[in-house]
């Protein structure tokens, strides 16, 4: 719903604490959940588990970040999931082709990844142009790209086969950790100690996954762009009031094209990273609904589909809210189907509390 008397609650929101809590309910809810799950699920409150959650959320985080920019402008990008599949499949395909040449492995990986990233700019350029220049509703423009990207991806996959046969170094990089500690025995960096036998693996402590570093860097850059750079200011301006933005001299069309290209590039990055994480080129299955989850995370993170609102860190928290909910409930031993219900109910409860009792904190 748009701003209106029905949803205004002046007074409280004018105080600093109120504003902080109101804007960050998702964060408070996240912290609250972590505390509760720490008691209900043995094995939840462990560094290894938090690392797992972040590690596996990294593609979702990238997709949500992509969606954030588009949603702030008042649009929606339904194609992120399939752009991710496209860049993943293309990167993998190029790597497979290059593997047959005498090229050294690092070059194969770099060239393949670059190809994946470059191709991901194209869908964004097209949907951006359609939305900005030809005033096609974002929903339809990106839904069209959804089908187009998927068709091309499946061609690259020769049907519904993930692309296998990639350099073995890929998953090692994608799933690697910065530090490996074998308590009382050794500390190694980048690689687990060689001497470890299979039955001793559980003793190893691993810290700081590479994915965490990637996510941190990307989030920091995007945060800077959105909140400290003119690009971000313009993005908000467009989402808030297109006419005002035009009158203020912002080249709205150009900016929108850039936004959709950025969104699609981040989806492409997610795709390329996915190749590193899984060691194969994955097409996106229809039931994945990545776009729906990305948009949900962004909205939970405080954005409005009407545009003009949204933050990168909010979206990051939004992804974690969903991920921690699922992980925590699973570890707490809640049955799978009950979990679907619980996720829905908890989300509703959290938003309701935020809306009903703004003075709670």
């Amino acid at each position: 719903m748009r701003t209106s008397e029905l949803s205004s609650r002046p007074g409280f929101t004018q105080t600093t604490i109120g504003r902080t809590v109101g804007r960050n309910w998702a964060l408070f809810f996240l912290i609250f959940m972590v505390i509760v799950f720490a008691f209900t699920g043995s094995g939840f409150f462990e560094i290894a588990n938090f690392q797992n959650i972040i590690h596996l959320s990294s593609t979702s985080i990238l997709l949500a970040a992509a969606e954030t920019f588009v949603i702030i402008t008042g649009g929606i990008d339904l194609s992120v999931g399939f752009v991710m599949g496209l860049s993943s499949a293309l990167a993998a395909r190029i790597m497979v082709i290059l593997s047959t040449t005498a090229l050294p492995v690092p070059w194969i990986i770099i060239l393949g990844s670059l190809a994946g990233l470059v191709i991901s700019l194209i869908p964004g350029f097209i949907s951006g142009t359609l939305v900005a220049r030809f005033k096609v509703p974002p929903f339809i423009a990106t839904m069209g790209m959804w089908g187009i990207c998927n068709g091309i991806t499946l061609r690259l996959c020769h049907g519904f086969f993930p692309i296998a046969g990639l350099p073995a170094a890929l998953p090692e990089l994608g799933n690697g950790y910065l530090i490996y500690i074998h308590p009382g025995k050794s500390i190694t960096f980048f690689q687990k100690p060689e001497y470890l036998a299979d039955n001793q693996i559980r003793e190893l402590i691993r810290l700081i996954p590479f994915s965490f570093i990637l996510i941190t860097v990307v989030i920091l850059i995007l945060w800077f762009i959105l909140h400290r750079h003119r690009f971000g200011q313009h993005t908000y301006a467009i989402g808030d009031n297109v006419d005002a933005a035009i009158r203020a001299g912002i080249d709205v069309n150009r900016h929108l094209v850039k936004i959709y290209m950025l969104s699609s590039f981040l989806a492409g990055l997610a795709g390329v990273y996915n190749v590193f994480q899984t060691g194969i080129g994955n097409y996106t299955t229809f039931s994945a609904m990545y776009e729906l989850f990305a948009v949900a995370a962004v909205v939970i993170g405080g954005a409005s589909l009407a545009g003009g609102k949204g933050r990168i860190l909010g979206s990051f928290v939004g992804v974690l809210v969903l991920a921690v909910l699922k992980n925590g409930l699973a570890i707490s031993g809640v049955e799978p189907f009950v979990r679907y219900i619980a996720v829905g109910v908890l989300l509703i409860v959290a938003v309701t509390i935020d809306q009903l009792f703004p003075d709670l904190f």
Partner: protein
Amino acid sequence: MKKTIVILLAGLFTLGIGTLPIASGESKASADGKITLLFMPGVADPFYTTMEKGVRAKAAELGVDVIVAEYPKSWGPEAQVPILEATAARMKFDAILIAPTSNDALIAPLKKLYNKGMEIITVDTFLGDGDYSKKSTYSFPLTYIGSDNELGGKLMAEKLAAMVGEKGKVFCEATNPDASSVADRVKGFKAGIAEFPEMELVGVEWCQDVQQVAQEQTLAALQKNKDIVGIFGTNVYSAQGSYQAVVNAGLTGAIKICSWDATQELIGALKKGQVDLVLAQKPAEIGALGVEWAVKFLKDKSVNVPKKIIPGFEFFTKENVNDPAMEQYIYK
């Protein structure tokens, strides 16, 4: 300005209309009396793509035409039946090879096509209870060709038990409770594990055919039960997701992984030691058998077609994975 728009529009139009026939690929089926078959896959996944290859190869060998319908986006009659009807409306096919996505829902539409004079062969999944030998509302198909999913699940349980010394906790990652074939595998696996008193199935998760979700669910399960010794992945996506979760957790080697469906990816993982056992159904063989029997029957209606054909499974292990004789069972 207006003129440009008109020209642009006209251009786009001609382009659009011009490219359609090119993209439409297969030309209209021949009407010269050549046998034409329709292959209707169950859902978009490697299993059916492999089956399609078996179908195409056999059809080429026997000199019959085959048309492959669009791959449904999801498992269920609501996706499959409209495709079936639209594709079947193109012409009168001599026979239809179909993997019904619902035991009940497909009876009516297939019966309608059967009444129009097309022969039906169900592959991989079946109508009703799959027994076409006794008279019933669903006994009209020529035959059912497919794997015994429940048996497969049970075999997996036994083999997994043998690998882990018949004791310890195991976990099952499945896809979609609404897909009967997968539900049967889980049922068989549960029954198999129940025969070992020292083994316990600590959970069954459903990933809805999304590898990422399978990965998340398996990791959560590993975190909850740190002493899991074996995992069963019931199809391509769940198997790939669960073995990758084990790789992510750095527990390769400590946990035995059995996976259903032999994609190149899973065979590669087996070679690397990240997966321990891969069950290969024989999709290509199922497809080929379907074509073979259909053609046999269409050429001579007096041929006695067996009502159920079960091609069985192959198991890939570290020992036989490099055996050239096994190569044929990899899905590609």
